[in-house]
């Protein structure tokens, strides 16, 4: 089967590849921006973080407000963060980037296996199981966050449905592919 003839698979593969590089690129830009603050502290002055310490799947809500001196409540100025909180924010971001990249890699492997006419094989069952595990780990870590800024500690908890739904769907696909593998084996053993 020619992958390019199946447009859904073709575009899914393209989208997965695009997402893979876009996520890496955006994370590197984010790191470069933070690192630039070490050499040019004034560069961070107009930057605020709307979601950096809220529960969620990795988004920090980085915004630039040139010329604005007063920022709304619950919005953090990047330049006000201490080293520890900055490290926590970067580590949390890196963790979600890593999880997402691992998931995308597995998805790409599943698409490639369909291209090779090896859809209902053990490898794909393992891929979906791993995606379910990774998404569930993502779900656990996305549900909480904390901040400790100017002596004020705050812990936040919220259920983030996206990764949980992805995990459940992947688990469902694991079972569907197990069933498919069994049917394929039955079909192949009929002469």
């Amino acid at each position: 089967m020619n992958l390019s003839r199946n447009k859904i698979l073709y575009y899914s593969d393209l989208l997965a590849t695009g997402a893979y590089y876009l996520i890496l690129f955006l994370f590197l830009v984010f790191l470069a921006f933070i690192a630039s603050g070490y050499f040019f502290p004034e560069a961070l002055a107009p930057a605020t973080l709307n979601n950096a310490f809220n529960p969620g799947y990795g988004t920090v809500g980085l915004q630039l407000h040139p010329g604005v001196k007063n920022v709304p409540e619950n919005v953090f100025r990047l330049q006000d963060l201490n080293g520890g909180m900055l490290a926590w924010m970067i580590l949390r971001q890196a963790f979600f980037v890593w999880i997402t990249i691992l998931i995308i890699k597995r998805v790409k492997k599943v698409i490639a296996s369909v291209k090779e006419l090896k859809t209902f094989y053990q490898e794909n069952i393992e891929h979906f199981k791993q995606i379910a595990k990774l998404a569930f780990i993502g779900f656990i870590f996305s549900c909480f966050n904390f901040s400790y800024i100017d002596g004020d500690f705050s812990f936040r908890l919220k259920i983030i449905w996206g990764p949980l739904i992805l995990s459940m769907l992947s688990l469902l696909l694991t079972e569907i592919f197990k069933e498919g593998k069994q049917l394929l084996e039955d079909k192949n053993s009929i002469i």
Partner: protein
Amino acid sequence: MITVHIDVMLAKRKMMLKELSAEVGISETNLSLLKTGKAKGVRFNTLSAICEALDCQPGDILEYKMDNTDD
């Protein structure tokens, strides 16, 4: 359980498995699986081709035997 008597029919017709394989168009491996009862099923067209090649009826190849398992 179903037992397969391809080997008996092959002996009666003085035919080799290789010849049957060539005539029916099924690999020797698959015919061996069928002969040893390891296959889960047999398609009607396969059965038909085997019957044609061996000049016999499906009942000459397949036999149902009651399972004698003590539960």
